[in-house]
């Protein structure tokens, strides 16, 4: 099997319609799962720093399980598990599986960035009569979020690429479309590279978005 470059460029351009649709699917999957993951991540980060033992343990177990098992296993457990109890689409079971997975990593990112904000900031807030929650919301979290952005951006990129595993559940995202095209034409290499180009474009856009937010938050430097 060799690569025909003329064929590659032609395929890339001709197939833009179906891949554009697939890219939208990939983006939707990524956006939904990352949004839920941020929520999960924040919640478990707070549990870990809560100093309430049972909550800490729960958070530790969650993170241990997610980090200790392959994502593909998690996705299939979510797929078979959720579709068993619920009338839920393949798309949503993968989205939730990805959210469950990324949530653990994002929890650790948030925990680290919250704990990296000096104790003096909390003391300053408290000494002004601000409550613990108010100090966290107004003083600590805005600074922690800024510090979390670079690793968070990294995790978003990982999340976007990992969404390709949805192909195994039959979600028509980029990788799924590429393999279908491949099996239709027996020209797997061309279509895999076409999918790679689409992932590169999406990651590029995501990187731009994250650095735009980083710049916006850097005004106080």
């Amino acid at each position, binding site marked *: 099997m060799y690569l025909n470059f003329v064929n590659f460029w032609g395929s890339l351009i001709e197939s833009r319609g179906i891949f554009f649709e697939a890219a939208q699917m990939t983006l939707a999957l990524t956006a939904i799962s990352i949004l839920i993951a941020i929520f999960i991540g924040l919640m478990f980060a707070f549990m870990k720093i809560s100093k309430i033992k049972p909550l800490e343990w729960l958070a530790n177990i969650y993170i241990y399980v997610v980090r200790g098992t392959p994502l593909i296993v998690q996705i299939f457990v979510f797929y078979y598990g959720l579709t068993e109890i619920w009338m839920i689409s393949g798309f949503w079971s993968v989205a939730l599986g990805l959210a469950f997975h990324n949530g653990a990593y994002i929890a650790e990112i948030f925990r680290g960035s919250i704990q990296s904000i000096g104790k003096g900031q909390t003391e300053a*807030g408290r000494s*002004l*009569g601000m409550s613990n929650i108010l100090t966290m919301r107004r*003083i600590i979290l805005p600074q922690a979020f800024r510090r979390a952005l670079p690793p968070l951006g990294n995790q978003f990129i990982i999340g976007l690429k990992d969404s390709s595993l949805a192909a195994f559940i039959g979600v028509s995202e980029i990788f799924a479309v590429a393999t279908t095209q491949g099996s239709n034409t027996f020209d797997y290499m061309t279509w895999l590279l076409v999918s790679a180009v689409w992932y590169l474009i999406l990651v590029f856009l995501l990187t731009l978005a994250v650095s735009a937010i980083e710049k916006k938050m850097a005004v106080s430097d």
Partner: protein
Amino acid sequence: MSEQMIQVNKLNKYFGDLHVLKDIDFHVEESEVVVLIGASGSGKSTMLRCLNFLEMKNSGELYIKGEQIDPKKDNLNQVRQQVGMVFQHFNLFPHKTVLGNVIEAPLQVKKVSKAQAKKEGKELLEKVGLGDKADDYPARLSGGQKQRVAIARALAMKPEIMLFDEPTSALDPELVGEVLQTMKDLAKEGMTMVVVTHEMGFAREVADRVVYMHDGKIVETGAPKDIFENPKEERTQAFLSSIL
């Protein structure tokens, strides 16, 4: 007798096994400026931090304006609104502008209107000589300017007592004067102040009373003239001769 702003009876504080404050009796009267001196590790900062409950005492009684405060029952957030604090390392909020730092607590805690908070905040910044810096971020200020913003921020809550925890120790020598001047002005206005400092010149000039601490105990207390010129205790003499 004037009103006691702060009254401390038999206060004890431990860090683990370390007994850092030992049966401290202490009081501050209205409009009084009390300066705590002593070597590092003598407990003076811990003592100051107990006064606004950043550190919790292990035993003893603490009265603010005649009311005994029980951290378990009383709302410490309300107590702290009356007791402003200035830190050695300023602890300004780096993500907020200078004015943003000053109006944060009045807006969020006291629920003052934004217009009102801004007006009062700008007046306070004028007062500490930083009216033109309102829209700058703390990263662009010098240490002395940061500390004056921190003082304005504490004053914005209209506290009746101000605590200063080594406010000039982190400053370059040439920036110490501007901060001390701000504190002197405050003292002249009749603010009740408790100051932990190594600036003996400030203590001599501004303090109504100087308290010397050593090893978690108050060794000697008196008018600055008496402490600096006629210390009664050997410990105090040794400390003063080591630093003067």
